[in-house]
């Protein structure tokens, strides 16, 4: 039995995590780094992700790599995203940066579901966005949402 290689991942705040290579390769970003990396490709820096988030990401990858066909995968995923909004956003950003499609789909869908019922004002508050439309432009936008002859 061949011994599996391990990779060390280092987060933005210096925390290190030793994971099986197979688990690390679940992130296409890390896969690319390993394949194109030089001599020291056993330690990979992940500067966009903090230690707490990286630990959760590794937990996700472990489950999906080691038991991809398990019956409880769906309930694992459902429970995995039962976290507060800040953690969820960190997960989404990490999965985007680390190119982990499954986690990106899962976290994006969960955030989208949270946005579904929100009003425009609530979205602006959540993202700290300033309304930069003039009243005239807002009126035109409102009209766009009524029937308009196009061609």
């Amino acid at each position, binding site marked *: 039995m061949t011994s599996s290689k391990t990779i060390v991942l280092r987060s933005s705040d210096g925390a290190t995590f030793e994971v099986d290579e197979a688990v690390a390769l679940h992130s296409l970003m890390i896969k690319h780094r390993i394949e194109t990396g030089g001599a020291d490709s056993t330690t990979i820096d992940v500067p966009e992700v903090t230690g707490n988030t990286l630990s959760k990401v590794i937990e996700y990858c472990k489950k999906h790599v080691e038991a991809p066909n398990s019956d409880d995968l769906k309930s694992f995923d459902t429970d995995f995203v039962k976290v507060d909004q800040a953690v969820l956003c*960190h997960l989404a*950003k990490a999965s985007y940066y680390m190119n982990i499609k499954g986690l990106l789909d899962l976290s994006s869908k969960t955030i989208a579901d949270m*946005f579904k019922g929100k009003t*425009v004002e609530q979205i602006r508050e959540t993202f*700290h*966005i300033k309304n930069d439309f003039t009243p005239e432009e807002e009126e035109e*936008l409102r*009209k766009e949402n009524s029937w308009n002859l196009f061609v």
Partner: protein
Amino acid sequence: MILNRKLTLKARPASTNSTMVSTRAKIRKTRNALKNYYPKKTTTDSYHQLTSSAERIGSNDDLLTEILHRLPVTSILQFKSVSKHWWWLLSHRSFTLRYDKFPISPGLFVHNKYVPYDVEDRSPPPYQSLDFCPDLNGIKIVQSCNGLLLCCCDRGHIRDHKYYVFNPTTKQFAIIPSVPGDDDARKSIRFMGLAFHQTTCPRYKAVCILGSAGIFVIQIYFSETGKWKTVNNYFSENPYARFGSGVYWNGAIHWNPSGGSLFYFDLNSEELRTLPLPLPVQARMTSLEGDAWDAHPPIYFGESRGHLHMVDTTCHGTRFHLNVYEMLGDHSGWFAKFEVGDDLLGCYPDIIRNYPYGLYCGFVVIDVVRGIEDEDTFLVLKYFRKILRYNVRDKSFKWLTNMTTDFEVGRHGRREIHPYIQRLASF
């Protein structure tokens, strides 16, 4: 119905008539206001002060797009008003094309009332009813095609009927110019159909069949040029031939074979071709004629997620089956996709009734809706005034609605039920 078809070359004068009304004033005005807006990469204003986790996502357009394209279309249209940057992001063609890539059919219109498929979804439906009324003569839906609806006047003289193409999601609409010719030409319209597909036919076309005394001519309208074109041949058919509602799929308009017409019109080659039928359906059609065929349950014929389906109902004594066929991509034939029957009969034993003139089957197939996975496919059925959904995966039922008035599922393909498909991109 015997198809008697003669194709001869006969030159017809090209059409140059155009009574198209054209205005984009409202959209132009908004876009002019925003035309000098370019997305800023980095700024120091409050929008980009990265203090919260949500802002980290908000500053990353790719990640924001990942989230936003998972929202229902009503939210997309609403959130365009958040800021100029969001308006730009959500209106951009790359976003709308990606959003429209996997069409969602969340419900259907019965008459003009909206019936959602997901009765457990508590969020407000996009419609209560279709509020599109550009015509004093009222509006009825003729065909639903990949997110666009073809409508025409509900009342008034046929020679005055206008045809409209509109997108109920974005509320854009267009008026199809009248077919070339005089009042007599307009009175002889036997069929009007829509051809549209977000990638293969993004500038919609209309197909019109004009016919009198058994001679039929096909005309095509191109929205890209605003002109009608006569197809350079005509065909003869039984003068009482019925052209059921059209289904656009794979570059061609197909007619429901219940209407007796056994052909489809390929818009790329502009040729009329014979529609092959599944062998059991063909056998039944040739053995039944006239009233006996009329008494047979109507054949469902429709498109969903790029698949063309035909559903034939067979009732024999106590056995009942809905046989779902799917057309092969090259139009060479059908394959049996799946079959539904015994479990329906178990729950609703009175769906087959024996009348003096024959067996009556209480279920009529309204729609076959394909899911992303095959197992997520469901059938929408009419049972008297009720509409129910049958899920193929677990063979479960759900009542969708109970209509207050009866509605027609035409035996010859004309129906008052049309699927609603979300479509963000403009046409």
